[in-house]
């Protein structure tokens, strides 16, 4: 029974929020009265949910995502919906139809994406916790760029019911906060089996982080420190890994040969799935309305041309092409084989080590408008997509600065060993603070 209300009137100078709930109801529970922001691709009953797209402007879901239901049951106050790249497609939150979110560390730079709004809301202390989603790095990238903590859970550990799908086989809802402890607390609330999600596993998360990482072996992939990664960023991350060694972990060099396919496999998979997921937006059951005076196909085309931004239309077309007659074998089928290759590379490495560490992003946050070429933008996901392809847990924790901008240390673990990933991040965080 929700019987209290939190007054929430933030000074949102970063455009982190698309919807603010000025009077947010909350109840009893572990998160009682705690303000939590929810990314705007997660369905919230009675609260507008737009995925930062014009095609969903005004859409008010009649149901809660499972993770949101769990949040409400834990007593949290859902204080607003955060800005994002439209439908999750982007690395900077510049693809929002409602203006970009600014990075609180430097308002001339992007906060990362696609969960940029959630990251900025947390980084600027508007909220202590937020839910984001991660398809190819969309929690970890903004966490790294804004200097906060963000976890992409093992695929299937958090229900996707109510998450407006972009790429079903890759994405997860995950916790974002300033501290590893808060990320862990939020993970406790949202993880666990949901019978409404056929891809969800019965693996609740009940862990309290510990700092003991003595004896853990950490793999350091050459591909995470090579060409394409800013040497200054690499340097800061290497120092952070050194700290982990001081805490009792040992490092082992390793290699992920399938990295060379990873980005292509990721973009083929997500564009194909997205082209199908986004076809339902015809303005008939929700959205801006289709013109009944036009014929069906004309009206449908017009709704999509007007309602979807350029990047979304580009990805839908790429996905449609890759799935079209004659191309399925060349693209989608091959991408799934490449994924198996990535999975088996990780499995091989994890038979020797317990964790893998490296930078989250190849650079610090870009300046607004800096990355205008789509392919160049896609390439910046190279270090984050492998964890999505393999379904393994991955966290980004702040580990220093380059040119005054935050750098993220990424730690990945075996499937369902989110707890160990959290512990390593916690150990590092506690040691440096």
């Amino acid at each position, binding site marked *: 029974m929700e019987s209290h209300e939190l007054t929430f009137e933030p000074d949102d100078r970063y455009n982190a929020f698309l919807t603010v709930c000025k009077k947010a109801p909350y109840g009893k529970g572990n998160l009682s009265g705690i303000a939590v922001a929810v990314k705007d691709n*997660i*369905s919230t009953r009675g609260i507008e*949910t737009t*995925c930062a797209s014009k095609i*969903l402007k005004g*859409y008010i*879901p*009649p*149901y809660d*995502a499972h993770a949101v239901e769990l949040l409400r049951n834990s007593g949290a106050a859902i204080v607003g919906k955060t800005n994002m790249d439209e439908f999750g497609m982007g690395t900077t939150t510049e693809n929002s139809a409602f203006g970009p979110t600014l990075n609180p560390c430097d308002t001339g730079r992007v906060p990362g994406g696609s969960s940029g709004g959630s990251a900025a809301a947390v980084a600027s202390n508007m909220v202590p916790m937020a839910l984001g989603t991660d398809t190819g790095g969309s929690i970890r990238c903004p966490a790294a760029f804004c200097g906060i903590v963000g976890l992409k859970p093992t695929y299937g550990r958090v229900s*996707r*019911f*109510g*998450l*407006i*799908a972009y790429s*079903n*086989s890759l994405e997860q809802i995950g916790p974002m906060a300033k501290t590893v402890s808060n990320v862990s607390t939020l993970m406790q609330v949202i993880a666990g089996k949901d*019978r*409404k*999600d*056929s*891809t969800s596993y019965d693996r609740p998360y009940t862990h309290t982080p510990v700092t003991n990482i003595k004896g853990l072996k950490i793999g350091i992939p050459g591909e995470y420190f090579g060409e394409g990664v800013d040497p200054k960023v690499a340097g800061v991350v290497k120092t952070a890994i050194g700290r982990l060694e001081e805490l009792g972990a040992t490092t082992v060099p390793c290699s992920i040969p399938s990295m060379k396919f990873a980005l292509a496999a990721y973009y083929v998979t997500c564009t*194909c*799935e997205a*082209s*199908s997921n986004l*076809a*339902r*937006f*015809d303005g*008939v*059951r*929700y959205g801006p309305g289709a013109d*009944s*005076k036009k014929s*069906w*196909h004309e009206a*449908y085309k017009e709704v999509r041309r007007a309602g979807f931004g350029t990047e979304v239309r580009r990805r839908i077309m790429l996905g*449609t092409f890759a*799935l*079209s*007659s004659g191309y*399925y074998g060349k693209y*989608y089928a091959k991408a799934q084989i490449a994924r198996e290759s990535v999975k088996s590379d990780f499995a091989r490495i994890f038979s020797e080590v317990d964790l893998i560490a490296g930078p989250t992003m190849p650079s610090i946050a870009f300046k607004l408008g800096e990355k205008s070429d789509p392919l160049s933008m896609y390439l910046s996901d190279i270090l984050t997509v492998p964890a999505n392809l393999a379904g393994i847990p991955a966290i980004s924790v702040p580990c220093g600065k380059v040119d005054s901008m935050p750098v993220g240390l990424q730690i990945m673990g075996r499937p369902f060993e989110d707890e160990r990933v959290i512990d390593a991040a916690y150990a590092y965080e506690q040691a440096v603070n």
Partner: protein
Amino acid sequence: MAEDQVIVGLEVHCQLDTKSKLFCGCSTDYRDDGPNTHVCPVCLGLPGAMPVLNKRSIEYAMKVAKALNCTVLHESEFSRKNYFYPDLDKAYQITQYDKPLAEGGYLEIESDEGGERRIQLTRIHVEEDPGRLVHMGNAERGKYSLVDYNRAGIPLIEIVSEPDMRSPKEARKFLNKLRATLEYLSVFDSDKEGSLRVDANISIKGNERVEVKNITSYKGVEKALTYEVTRQKNLIRRGQRIERETRHFIESTGITQSSRSKEQEHDYRYFPEPDLRPLHVQSWMAGIVLPELPDARRERFIAQYGCSLNHARTLTGELKLANFFEKVVAADPKGLSTLAATWIADTLIGELNYRSMSLERVDAAGITELVSILKQGTITDKSGIDVLRVMLDQRLKDEPAETPAAIISRLNLAKTTGDNSAILTAIEEAITENPKALEDYRAGKGGALNFLVGQVMKKTRGKADPGELNRLLTKALAKREA
């Protein structure tokens, strides 16, 4: 195969009779309720909603696979069939593509020449039904559509046959046998409107194949195919090519028409449904127990009730009819079966069809009583028909239902036994009133006797026993002096 042999294949879609929909808990009992009242985020395709498979739908589909002798695949999977249409709310249908539930199998039907024919099947799979469109408006006010999503997500089983049928009639027989089998398995209710849809593929040997989509009635299938055979044979005779195309059947006029070409762009971009997990259910087949199926029941009716092959075929052709028959004769199978089989198969069904009346409205006990009375011989067959008609009409019009005995008494239909005076009077009157008939009879014209019999029957309102009547009439005719 003859040079102009007709080749037919069918794709039959049947709604599975589960309580809830294929991927959500919405009730499937939507037909009496208003539009959009049996809908939830999942079957409405709201963003973020996810499907969860209804176990019973797979159990039902596997029963069908077993009854039709199919092989269930080791691993089967759902796929997305992507296309854009207002009644398809996700813009994809969750169906099965390259890994269906089962493959192969066959169905035995009565061939056109008598005897049995085996129609091979290609595959069986499970998929969801889309919503329902109602077309509105006109050219002046503007055309638009109204959509009702109650039907969206209803589980369908699709049974695909090889192109093994050789005539529209065989197609109808296949369909009837398939329908009966599904009813016997209790997985399908054919009385539900729209519960069966058929796509038919037809070609004349050596020519292109034409697809006729979305035929919604059993009779419609035979009509559509008959029309197509004629249409195609005419084209061939005129030396024209048959176009490979998709057509649709118009029930009201009985013709097929070419469908609009946009739907020819059939690139469905199939890929495996990422929100569902694969099925490994081959091992379930061993545990599936089949009930008595139509063929077995037919054989049992012949053996147990002494039915003729034709009667047995008719009576077991529909589950409800077979159950009805057994209920009627239950009290005295030995005594009642033969007569009941004749009366139900040859008379009752016809009377029901004539009244567009469903068997459900008939009281089995009443029929048992009627058949018993007929067995005793206290009324003539003609009176029996009259009584039956009264019984049915009363039920049809929701009037108080009388027992056969009450009707017989009220209408005074009991055979006149012993006292022949009424018949003799009627005979004399009939002969006197029809001198020409008497002449014809004397001239040896056979029809004259029957004519007079009919006249007497009219006068006695059918109460005269035909055998007795014939004897008495012949005697009376002989007595009349020339």
